[in-house]
């Protein structure tokens, strides 16, 4: 074929930008606008996915120099294996979410104009694609800004509510603080690339060949890690995530949680493994520790929530932590020169990236369907939806099973690979690290079990039982396009779970590029059915056989029992003979997580209050009980409030400069001129 992958990707970006430009013309015909532009974005995403898959499969490394950009500083674009992988992730999820959006956004017709949603959606996806393709600092930062600004407008789409505006503002502030850090980091790298003689150090190529002294390399690494961690939602920079993701429209939340956070991971991997390719052990240790903290704290926060979308947003924090665990392990192994183990860690982290995009996208799409149908985001007002929305419930269940890391779905494969990477740490020469890392494995196991508990709660309270709310909206199943988007994501989750060797085989080029070896040679040695990452004797897993085995036994049991079946009679609930049961007696989200809240509650500031209004006749039997609980994030009080207070104090001091009188301003100009004259003589 004469078309190469990078032009395929570029044409997709052009398509998206064109769709965004064209949208205002169709303002009058909202329904047609929605179908037209989301179909275009589906096609664009498909092109991008194809480009990405192709790029990784062939292990290519193509470059293109665009003539836009500043004079003498054109944009460089490069498509290599890592970019191709992230293009695939972004493209796949965008495709599914675009199909989903056709049905979802139609729900806004009549309430408000969706033109801005459409425009900024296309810009958002285009920005993300350009971030992944950038090959120089300027293009990277410009596309990063496009991505951040477009997502700000998307988050603030329902801007009549003040809390939405506050959430979006917080998001913008944190994103820009991060962007400044990234800019500074690129500045350090570029400066050392050409010793500040010209501006040409801004391309990634020259940064790769730069020789950095260790202090500056550390500064560059930590600045860029800080910036990308702010975008990814690593604790303690996560506070914007649970505010911004729930208030955005659900298709946007799916994209933000699913792929925008992954561009930050792309940034970390690119800067660390590609641009600064030599690093000491303690960088990897810090990444690992932050990943562990984010994983455990993220899932604990999620367990305390009763808002469905906030719960999912905190889970994104947890999963980013798990990805960072894989990457941190890879960094540690690489700095000890153990390439095979580093490849395993890197593949585990990247596999989880792909998995998380798929199942988090699926879960947010499901939450969006529920929100669309019931108008509720609070789980404690829902229940019994499995009867009215069977498709959404089944697909949401697949998402829940995947994120809880249960075989045969995809979440389990990446967690298994991460555990195998942990179990190989006895190969490390340092005895202290050898003792501490297994404790990290135990924390990862804790995270997995708590995530399963959280999703039993989420699915059980939302879909099972009886309706818990006071008013009863007319609940209907999601439209066909929403179901199709979710179904495609669910099928991908399943395929990623039962065919892991094929995917690792495909992804291995990345490991080879960054660590020097591949694991596919051992991982897939026994064929496409078995996953044997290190060696057959060490550990092996076959997702397909697990799935087929369970299916076979279930089918066999079902058939054998229905040969001479007893009858099934539908009867009222038994409940041990208690007759006066009503829907308020069910467990809801707060009560489900109570045991875990009791055990881990000291990590949060929790205040509970119970008020009893007694009956007049019998004081012992209360007429009404009021229960009030407030759970607050301690990090907000320790870290953010002091910073916010300090910055307000500083700005008040600086504000005194604005006197209001003309003479004062004239004096400022006068003094500045004199100082300049003195120093520039």
């Amino acid at each position, binding site marked *: 074929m004469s078309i190469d992958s990078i032009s395929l990707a570029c044409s997709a970006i052009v398509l998206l930008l064109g769709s965004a430009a064209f949208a205002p013309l169709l303002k009058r015909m909202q329904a047609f606008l929605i179908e037209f532009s989301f179909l275009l974005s589906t096609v664009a995403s498909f092109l991008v996915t194809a480009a990405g898959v192709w790029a990784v499969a062939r292990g290519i490394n193509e470059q293109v120099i665009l003539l836009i950009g500043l004079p003498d500083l054109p944009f460089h674009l490069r498509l290599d294996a890592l970019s191709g992988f992230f293009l695939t992730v972004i493209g796949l999820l965008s495709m599914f979410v675009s199909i989903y959006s056709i049905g979802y956004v139609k729900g806004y017709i009549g309430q408000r104009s969706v033109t801005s949603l459409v425009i900024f959606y296309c810009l958002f996806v285009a920005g993300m694609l350009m971030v992944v393709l950038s090959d120089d600092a300027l293009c990277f930062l410009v596309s990063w800004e496009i991505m951040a600004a477009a997502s700000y407008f998307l988050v603030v789409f329902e801007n009549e509510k003040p809390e939405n505006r506050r959430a979006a503002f917080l998001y913008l502030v944190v994103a820009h603080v991060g962007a400044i850090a990234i800019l500074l980091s690129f500045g350090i790298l570029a400066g050392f690339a050409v010793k500040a003689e010209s501006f040409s150090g801004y391309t990634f190529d020259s940064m790769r060949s730069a020789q950095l002294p260790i202090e500056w390399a550390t500064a560059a690494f930590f600045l860029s890690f800080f910036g990308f961690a702010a975008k990814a939602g690593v604790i303690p920079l996560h506070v914007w995530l649970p505010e911004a993701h729930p208030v955005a429209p659900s298709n946007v939340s799916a994209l933000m949680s699913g792929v925008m956070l992954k561009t930050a991971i792309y940034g970390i991997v690119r800067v660390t493994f590609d641009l600064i390719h030599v690093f000491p052990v303690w960088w990897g240790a810090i990444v690992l520790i932050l990943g562990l903290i984010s994983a455990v704290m993220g899932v604990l926060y999620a367990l305390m929530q009763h808002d469905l979308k906030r719960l999912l947003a905190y889970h994104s924090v947890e999963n980013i932590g798990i990805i960072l665990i894989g990457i941190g392990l890879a960094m540690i192994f690489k700095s000890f020169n153990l390439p095979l183990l580093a490849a395993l860690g890197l593949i585990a982290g990247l596999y989880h990236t792909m998995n998380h995009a798929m199942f988090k996208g699926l879960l947010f799409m499901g939450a969006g369907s529920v929100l669309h149908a019931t108008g509720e985001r609070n789980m404690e007002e829902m229940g019994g939806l499995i009867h009215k929305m069977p498709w959404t419930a089944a697909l949401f269940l697949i998402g829940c099973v995947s994120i809880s890391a249960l075989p045969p779905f995809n979440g389990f494969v990446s967690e298994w690979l991460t555990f195998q990477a*942990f179990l190989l740490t006895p190969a490390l020469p340092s005895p202290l690290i050898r003792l501490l890392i297994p404790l990290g494995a135990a924390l990862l196991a804790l995270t997995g079990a708590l995530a399963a508990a959280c999703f*039993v709660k989420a699915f059980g309270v939302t879909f099972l039982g009886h309706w818990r709310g006071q008013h009863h909206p007319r609940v209907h199943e999601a439209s066909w396009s929403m179901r199709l988007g979710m179904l495609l994501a669910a099928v991908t989750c399943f395929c990623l779970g039962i065919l892991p060797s094929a995917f690792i085989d495909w992804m291995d080029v990345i490991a080879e590029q960054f660590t020097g070896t591949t694991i596919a040679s051992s991982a897939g040695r026994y064929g496409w059915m078995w996953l044997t990452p290190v060696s057959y004797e060490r550990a092996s897993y076959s997702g397909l056989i697990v799935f087929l085995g369970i299916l076979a036994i279930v089918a066999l049991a079902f058939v054998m029992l229905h040969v001479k079946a007893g009858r099934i009679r539908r009867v009222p*609930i038994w409940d041990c003979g208690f007759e006066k049961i009503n829907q308020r007696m069910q467990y809801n989200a707060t009560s489900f997580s109570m045991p875990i809240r009791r055990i881990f509650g000291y990590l949060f500031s929790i205040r509970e209050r119970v008020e009893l209004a007694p009956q007049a006749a019998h004081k012992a039997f209360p007429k009404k009980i009021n229960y009030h609980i407030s759970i607050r994030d301690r990090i907000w009080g320790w870290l953010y409030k002091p910073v916010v207070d300090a910055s307000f104090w500083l700005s008040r001091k600086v504000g005194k400069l604005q006197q209001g009188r003309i003479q004062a301003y004239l004096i400022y100009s006068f003094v500045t001129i004199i100082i300049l004259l003195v120093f520039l003589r």
Partner: protein
Amino acid sequence: MTVVPYIIELLQIGVLIGLAPAFVGWVRMVKCWAQGRRSAGLLQPYRDLAKLFSKDVLLAENASWIFRFTPYLVFGTAVLAGGIIPILSIDLPLAPTADVIVIVALFAIARFFIALAGMDIGTAFGGMGSSREMMIASLAEPAMLMAIFTVSLANRSTSLSEIIQVIYSGQSVIRPSLAFAFLAFVLIALAETGRVPVDNPATHLELTMVHEAMILEYSGRHLALIEWAGMMKLFLFTSLGIAAFAPWGIAAREELSAVPLALLYMIIKFGVVGVAIVLIETGLAKMRLFRLTEFLGAAFLLATLGMLAFFILD
């Protein structure tokens, strides 16, 4: 491609399905003797299962497909795990499908769906059982992983067949790390299979139930499948412990003639384990729910000490 390994595999699954109720019957018999009561006999669990299978199924009006699907899934995962753990022989064709971590995850699937089934009907008891079960599981998982880690450190693999082969080849001796891991495993097994002091399997008081509360609404053949799966889970945890810590007797050769001897060894070991379970259950009282943090914390501590002892002392 010989057919003998497949025959052994089927035999093993048959032993699991057939003898799991007998094991539970044995435990109940010994418990009755220890408490000075007359037992109902070794075969009583079989009679219970037969009775349940012959009864009608009474489903609550708002039970969904998850409620009806869960018993089959739980039974299926238990049987699949039985096909992977070496009970009679090491050379099982299904053994490379899963290592110890996957087996723990198979039990996790069953637990996930039973917890969902508990929430499905919308009673307070079901939700209570699900919430408590998930809490216990989340505390037991780190301890379980540490114990697996210690065992795999000593035997350089996480695949059970490999572990047994390393033990047979005499390369691992009685190390203190394995002793600690064994103690931790006992505590975790008590938690996962729902025995005293974590959960009383014979209680009728709903507020003290954990596992029983989740399956309160089941009846007929569904309840039979879940009860059978529960018995198989106890059987499987015992065989997991035997395979990892005391595997002598499991057939190492791929011949049918080695199977009856392996079966005999298995029966003797299970008999001893049954007595040990009864000693623990009669000697301890069921703990309050929030004291389980200390119990499972002690299990985690023992497993971590095992891992540290491996590095320090070996």
